[in-house]
């Protein structure tokens, strides 16, 4: 029986030669050894299973990429690169241009970030610096966790019935077309949903500021605000940025809440109150209706773009965090 066990390749000889070991008189000992033979075989099978499982994850991701690419090929061939800049999306006329959705996605995501960052950073500073523990910190931590836990379809439902009327009134007052649904409403919903990402990441980062640094500044007579501004912020800025990137990744890919309140029109949004569509929402709305192969493939190409963009953003964020925590 040839076998490599307990760290293959580490020893010079791993052959199994156990004849003499069996001649132990003790009853328990014999039982013990006989049992062990069987286990050696299981051991190898177990190691292989672990490897297969780790491999499976890798294959899964490669499979996802290949599927997206292969299914996008018809659209890439027929529509070319200019598909991404095409301003008109009209499946009835077989005209496909992704620009309205790219613009819609960027507008909603960045608007959401602008709205949410002051809040998420405030939460991060409170939890990381002002009140690391105590009732207020516990309350806030639970609030952030709950915000993260609520399913996106519920955000969308609430947005549709509560936020949309509010925005509509607001739009009446400022004199734009009172649709209620649109880019702005989606951004507000998104901004609530992404608070937890930047907040909890920022909290971790602020906690990691070495206290001697802060104490050094305090001992020179710096105020709390001065310490935060000139010690904590510079020290954590890359980490805070990474938290914002993670929020952005989430906002770009969010589907349900946005689909329910964005208004679902494939026209280029005129202003931030216009209805529109994001890459994710147009896929959600039209995927099961896409009759022609090019139509379907064009939607999948949007999915591929979405996939690549979110993966790159998440990877950059994670790299920054990793570098930060290793330092």
């Amino acid at each position: 029986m040839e076998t490599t066990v307990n760290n293959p390749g580490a020893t010079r000889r791993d052959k199994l030669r156990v004849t003499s070991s069996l001649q132990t008189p003790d009853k328990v000992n014999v039982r013990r050894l006989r049992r062990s033979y069987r286990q050696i075989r299981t051991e190898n099978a177990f190691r292989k299973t672990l490897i297969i499982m780790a491999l499976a994850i890798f294959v899964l991701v490669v499979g996802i990429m290949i599927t997206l690419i292969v299914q996008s090929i018809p659209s890439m061939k027929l529509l070319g690169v200019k598909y991404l800049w095409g301003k008109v999306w009209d499946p009835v006329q077989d005209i496909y241009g992704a620009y309205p959705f790219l613009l819609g996605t960027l507008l909603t995501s960045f608007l959401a970030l602008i709205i949410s960052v002051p809040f998420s950073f405030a939460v991060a500073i409170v939890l990381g610096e002002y009140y690391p523990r105590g009732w207020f910190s516990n309350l806030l931590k639970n609030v952030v966790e709950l915000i993260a836990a609520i399913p996106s379809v519920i955000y969308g439902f609430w947005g549709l019935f509560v936020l949309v009327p509010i925005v509509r009134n607001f739009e009446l007052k400022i004199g734009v077309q009172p649709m209620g649904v649109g880019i702005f409403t989606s951004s507000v919903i998104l901004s609530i949903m992404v608070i937890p990402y930047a907040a909890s990441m920022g909290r971790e980062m602020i906690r990691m500021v070495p206290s001697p640094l802060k104490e050094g500044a305090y001992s020179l007579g710096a105020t709390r605000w001065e310490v935060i501004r000139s010690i904590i912020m510079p020290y954590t800025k890359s980490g805070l940025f990474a938290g914002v990137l993670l929020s952005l990744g989430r906002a770009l890919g969010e589907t349900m809440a946005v689909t329910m309140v964005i208004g679902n029109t494939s026209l280029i949004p005129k202003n931030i109150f216009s209805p529109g569509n994001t890459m994710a929402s147009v896929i959600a709305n039209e995927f099961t209706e896409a009759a022609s192969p090019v139509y379907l493939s064009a939607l999948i190409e949007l999915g591929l773009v979405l996939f690549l963009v979110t993966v790159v953003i998440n990877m950059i964020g994670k790299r920054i965090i990793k570098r930060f925590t290793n330092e």
Partner: protein
Amino acid sequence: MGPRIKLRIGKSTVFKTLVILFASACVIPLLAILGYIIKEGITKINWSFFVNVPKPVGEAGGGIANALVGSFIIVGVAAIMAIPVGILSGIYLSENKTSKLAYWSRLSVDILQGVPSIVIGIVVYFWIVKPIGSFSAISGSVALAIMMLPIIVRSTEETLKLLPDTLKEAALALGMPYHRMILKVILPCGIGGILSGVMLSVARIAGETAPLLFTAFGNPYLSTNITKPMHSLPLLIFNYATSPYDDWHNLAWGASLILLLWVLLLNIITKLTTRKWNIQL
């Protein structure tokens, strides 16, 4: 105290007040959402809500039994698929920190964690729905399982990494084979962290809608056949919320409350397991 110092202290106080105000403001949307869902939902829930299937448009009453059963089946099957793969991969990663496969596998987990759920829906559509030729609950489960994987793998890896090597040495020095060392010593010692990872992953996907749109699809009737379309709570909420009928909106409000409670319950259980199993070494 000179006026300069007063000014600086004043600035500091203003900043602190602002920060606390902004942070506290996060409570408002949360309370608004929770309050509204509870207010709208609680009046729609009664016994028939749980045991009946939705009535056609125009008829009052009806329930969400089909979505409850469907959610349970779809999430359960997803967990059955994701838990073993996730835990075993996590073990591999914690045991082989530097191997090439570990590097690629870890990278894959990172990527998987950031993939938008709708994209996973598309991919599973081509993997399962199209070859079979019909939407099915099982394809929904596969999509959800893919979303659970990274959370389970990560929590398993991180938990096991924290266990001291001496524990492994103690087991191996007793002549224990590798798989027994892992299954009987390492896993039991890290079970708390692993369990909370599993619970967290279930909580994460219980409310997922986007990957089910093109997979489980939804079904107005009670069905337990996992090769056929099936309804789930989030799908039902989406379909009925965006419909123009008040009866359906009412069902959706009730379903939202149930989904909310179910997700919050899972989150609370996760917290309790982490606390209870918090082993000391």
